């Protein structure tokens, strides 16, 4: 069956991509790897769901046989949720199909035998429009399309996997369920914070404002002072609060991409030349260890 072939290890993204395919007037064919997901996705509007059986627990290991399936079926597009697993699988499939790929697209539309995509480059400073002719591969982050409903046929299929890589251990990462993207106010801490104990300063400001706490990548990934789902930017969360206040955040473009849709942006940084001030509505040039306590006091008055 020709059409848009879809995979995501996140069901909500898979559902949104099915929505895209249907709105583009294409058949939506979903690949899933376990019965539970097949069940959950049963009413997501896919015309066909392939339940893949195979010998590997790693979806990436099916790249070659998925590419073969897509070829045999005359697929028009392989659209994959932009997550670490999805990007990996998608890029390998693109090689086996010998075709172009656009990663993490913000828009996708279909023209005359071609796909038109937009994505950001240079950390978010520039938007690039690309044209992919014929069969192509794209990865798509969540939140870009509307899901639909409807049932289709379910087909069991066995695919061969690359067995050279083996899974030894899986350790779940605990999520605290913080949803920064829905927060009304966000206090963001950056590497200007000297010690982990000083997180209290950010917490106090957040409490005074009724805000969630976010951070830059380094605070989460290098220093591990906050969990990964709290960092904002091109590789983290994209937020759209009414108020964003940063403390000790330089404001490099990769971070700022994640806050562009904020209603009001405030930066507090000791360096007058920090790029955060160009991205901000209001700013204070000063030592946050002096400014933030004063701000907390002023807010509680």
């Amino acid at each position, binding site marked *: 069956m020709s059409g848009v072939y879809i995979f995501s290890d996140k069901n909500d993204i898979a559902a949104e991509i099915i929505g895209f395919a249907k709105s583009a007037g294409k058949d939506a064919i979903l690949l899933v790897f376990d019965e539970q997901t097949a069940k959950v996705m049963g009413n997501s509007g896919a015309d066909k769901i392939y339940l893949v059986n195979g010998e590997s627990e790693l979806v990436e290991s099916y790249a070659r046989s998925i590419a073969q399936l897509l070829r045999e079926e005359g697929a028009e597009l392989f659209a994959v949720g932009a997550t670490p697993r999805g990007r990996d699988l998608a890029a390998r499939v693109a090689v086996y199909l010998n075709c172009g790929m656009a990663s993490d697209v913000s828009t996708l539309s279909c023209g005359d035998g071609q796909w038109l995509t937009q994505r950001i480059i240079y950390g978010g400073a520039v938007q690039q429009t690309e044209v992919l002719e014929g069969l192509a591969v794209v990865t798509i982050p969540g939140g870009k399309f509307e899901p639909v409903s409807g049932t289709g046929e379910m087909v069991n299929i066995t695919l061969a996997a690359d067995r050279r890589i083996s899974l030894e251990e899986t350790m779940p990462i605990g999520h605290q369920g913080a949803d920064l993207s829905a927060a009304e106010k966000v206090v963001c801490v950056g590497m200007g914070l000297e010690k982990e104990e000083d997180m209290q300063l950010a917490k106090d400001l957040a409490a005074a404002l009724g805000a969630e706490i976010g951070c830059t990548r380094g605070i989460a990934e290098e220093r591990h002072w906050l969990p990964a789902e709290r960092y904002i930017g091109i590789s983290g969360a994209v937020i759209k609060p009414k108020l964003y206040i940063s403390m000790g955040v330089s404001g490099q473009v990769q971070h700022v991409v994640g806050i562009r849709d904020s209603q009001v*942006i405030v930066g507090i940084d000791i360096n007058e030349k920090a790029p955060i001030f160009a991205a901000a509505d209001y700013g204070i040039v000063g030592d946050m260890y002096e400014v933030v306590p004063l701000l907390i006091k002023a807010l509680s008055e």
Partner: protein
Amino acid sequence: MARIVACYKWVVDEADIRINPDRSVDLSKAKKKISDYDKCAIEAAVQTATAIGGKAVGLTFGTADARQSLKDALSRGLEEVYYINAEEAAQADGAATANALAAAIKKMEEVNLVICAEGASDTYQRQIAPRIGAVLDWPVATSVSKLEVTGNTLTAVRKLDDCLQTVKVELPAVVSVLPEINNPPIPTLKAVLAAGKKPVKEFSAGELNADLVPKTRVADLQGYVMSRKNLIFKDGEAVDQVKELVAALKKEGVI
């Protein structure tokens, strides 16, 4: 001796990009740099080579100006750099880049591990490592936050959205590493001086016999313009700055 190859890209420094009022993109004033996270790929190669008694080498695919990167890369502990000098690099997409890099890797001897970074700071496509693996038909582990080579086996910890995965794979293999895998040191003066004497092997596009025709076509580039109020309080006492800020935020109706 076993070679550990670090792939790095010579990119425009995004901080120097100017956006014209019509949103066209001006790169003329932009300096170039080794892609930020590729420094972690280089450091990972150096550390792995040290641990197993192998040789850490660099590999870059770039236009003529990528020659400027060689000394910088070599000062970071690599023993030699392979430089694919090709005009095609200017238009290369993921397919062309992976083809070029894989072709060069095939020409090198005794490669047992290829290390890319998670993503390049210009494209941030996160395609090249899995693509190289597929082109070479080598196993791949992406999003690696920890890696260890013992004998002919690589053990890698992958950091995914929902879990940490430990995977094992026989070498040769390709990995992409996350920036948190290490903290690349700033090269010492001694290392910078020594870098000039280290060997560079140059490939031309013709020599590689690889398909460097891009499969995606860039139709348009548009700069992003941030239009904000930019009211910055920088003079006077902190107490007064804070007062002004609070007044402004009240007026905005956000507090």
